[in-house]
Each structure stands twice: as C-alpha cells, then as structure tokens.
C-alpha cells in the first residue's frame, strides 16, 4: 500500500510537466515569474498627460505592481478610475495586486498608469520603453504601443463593443 502511493505520483510527474514545456516563448528558468503583456498607450500632445495600460499575469507567488517609470514622462503614477453614484473619480493607488489565476488588467475605466508631463508627443503607431516595478519580481522592461487618442482597446485588437450591424437612418 505504502509503496503504491509513492510510485503513482512519481509516474505522473513527466506528464504533468508537459503542458508547461510545450509553451513556446515562455521562460521556464524562473518560477514565480511575472509576465507583462499588451502594453499600450494613447496619442497625446507633449507637455500634457498620457496613459499606460497592460495585462500582468503571475506564474508564481502573489505580487504587487508598485511603480512605473518611462523616459517619455516626468512622472508615472498608478491610478484607478471608478464611478460612484453617477460621478467619475480618479485616485492614485500605491499598489495593484496580481496572483496566479487572477491577471491584473490595466484598462480604460479602471486601473491605469497616468503619465504626467509628457516629454514628447505620443503619436498613433509610436513605441516607447517603460519599466514596471513589482514588490517581489522586481523590474520588468516593456515596450508600449501607442493607439489613437481615447482608443478603447490596444492597437491591432478589435475595438470593444463594435457593432457591424447596419444603423437605421
């Protein structure tokens, strides 16, 4: 009985590992790794404010996004927008949590990075670098892609809620 209970999990190990080995482009060397994907921004003029959105997935221990830096802005702050009784509010937040199975999505109308004092204008199609800091994982370097002013979705993605049906005139 005792021997059997040990052998079975051991036999299953290679098979359990297979799905993880199959994923291309995902570094396996560091378990507990944070992935930052789909980093995007919106067109905005120099000297004004901009925004940064992204999707963070966690393959290890729970972590927190605690800061952002980018050479295109004097200051980058993590903010959250929310509606309260028909009133829109925006507040700075110290950190945003991420954990396995619970991706952290920075998107219009929620968590976002506010870029203050843009050192250059951001134009649709531009790219710029940014560093995203996590409490545990440290710094992650990313490239942001600029969509048009006020875009609801990242560049290249289908616009959210687009209706292809005909309008009645």
């Amino acid at each position: 009985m005792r021997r059997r209970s040990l052998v079975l999990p051991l036999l299953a190990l290679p098979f359990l590992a297979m799905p993880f080995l199959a994923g291309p482009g995902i570094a396996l060397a560091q378990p507990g790794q944070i992935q930052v994907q789909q980093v995007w921004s919106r067109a905005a003029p120099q000297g004004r404010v901009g925004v940064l959105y992204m999707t963070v997935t966690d393959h290890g221990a729970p972590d927190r996004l605690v800061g952002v830096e980018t050479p295109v802005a004097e200051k980058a702050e993590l903010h959250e927008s929310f509606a309260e009784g028909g009133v829109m509010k925006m507040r700075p937040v110290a950190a945003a949590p991420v954990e396995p199975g619970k991706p952290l999505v920075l998107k219009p109308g929620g968590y976002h990075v506010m870029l203050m004092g843009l050192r250059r204008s951001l134009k649709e199609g531009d790219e710029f670098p940014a560093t995203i800091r996590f409490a545990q994982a440290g710094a992650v370097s990313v490239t942001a892609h600029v969509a048009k002013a006020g875009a609801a979705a990242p560049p290249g993605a289908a616009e959210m809620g687009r209706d292809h049906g005909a309008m009645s005139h």
Partner: protein
Amino acid sequence: MSDQPRRKLPGFAIALAALVVLAVIGAGTAWFMQGGAPTIGGPFKLVNGEGRPVTDRDFRGHYLLVYFGYTFCPDVCPTTLNQVAEALDKLGPKGEQVQPLFITVDPKRDTPQVVGQYVAAFTPRLVGLTGTPEEIAKVAREYRVYYAIHKTAGSPGDYTVDHSSSLYLMSPSGAFIAPIRADQSGAEMAKDIARHLS
C-alpha cells in the same frame, strides 16, 4: 326665518373653502410646471479653443451633445470623447445635426489653447469650451453637473476632478431631451442618440 341664514352659512363656507383649496392646488401646479420642476440646460457664455466667445445661442438649430470633463483626465474622458466621435461617424448624415461640446470643469488648468488642442485629437467637429471659474460654475449648475476638486498627495498643484459622467442631448431649440450614458461603445451611443433625432 332666523334659521334660514344659519343653515345657508355652512354651505357658503364650504363652497368658499373648496374654492380656496382649488386655488392653492392651481397655483401649486403652475409653480411646479414653471420653476418647481427641474430643468436641465440654460444660457451660457464661454470661450472656445481659439479664445473666441461662444454662447448657447450660437448653436441654435443643432442638437447638442454636451459632455463635462477635464483635460488632465487621461483615462475616462478620452475614452468617452473617442466614443462620441465614433457615435457621430456611425450616425452618418443624421449625425451632422449633432454638435458635440466638451465643457471643462477644470477652468484653472484648462485654458482655451489647452482645450482646443485636446479636443482636436478626437474629431475636428468637437468644440471645446472653457471660461472663468464663475462661468463654469454657472453652466454646471444649469446642467445639474456635480464637480469637485480632489487634492492628491503630490505637489500642491496636483489634483483630480470628480465629475458627473453623463452626457446631455439638447434639442435644436436648446431644450433638454435626454441623458446619454458615457459608459457605452460608440455604436451603442449612436443608437441611443438616433432614437431622439427627427
């Protein structure tokens, strides 16, 4: 004989009381119809992106789609204004009757030049308006828009502005038609607006 007037008096009193009651109801109804019922919108005198004075009368003959926001808002305001631009595109020729207006609730930071540059990024049709803090307070009051400065823990000049998120659709004669929800896609907003256009 002495009984007769005594009997008639209560009847007369009742009639008089009834008249008074009716008069009070009538006056109350008139008050409610005129000033007691809430109205949305009203006259304004503001400044556009080129620094020229603009009044509500300049837009007579056009439906107005009015949005209150501020240019230091990087997330929600641009999303809404982009959806307004998309909605007007989707409305096609019908949308040409609709003039979109962006009125800032942050007159201190939003100068005419800042507002003009800001709105141009969304659609050339969007008109951005600013004014003195008093002029902005007046137009916000008329539209029953709530706004309040919220100081953030940065430098003293750092603040965000809480503000009502609804848009307002006004008739070509300047009367309020309906609120338009800001948290919908351009296509949804177009359908919402189309229902009210003649």
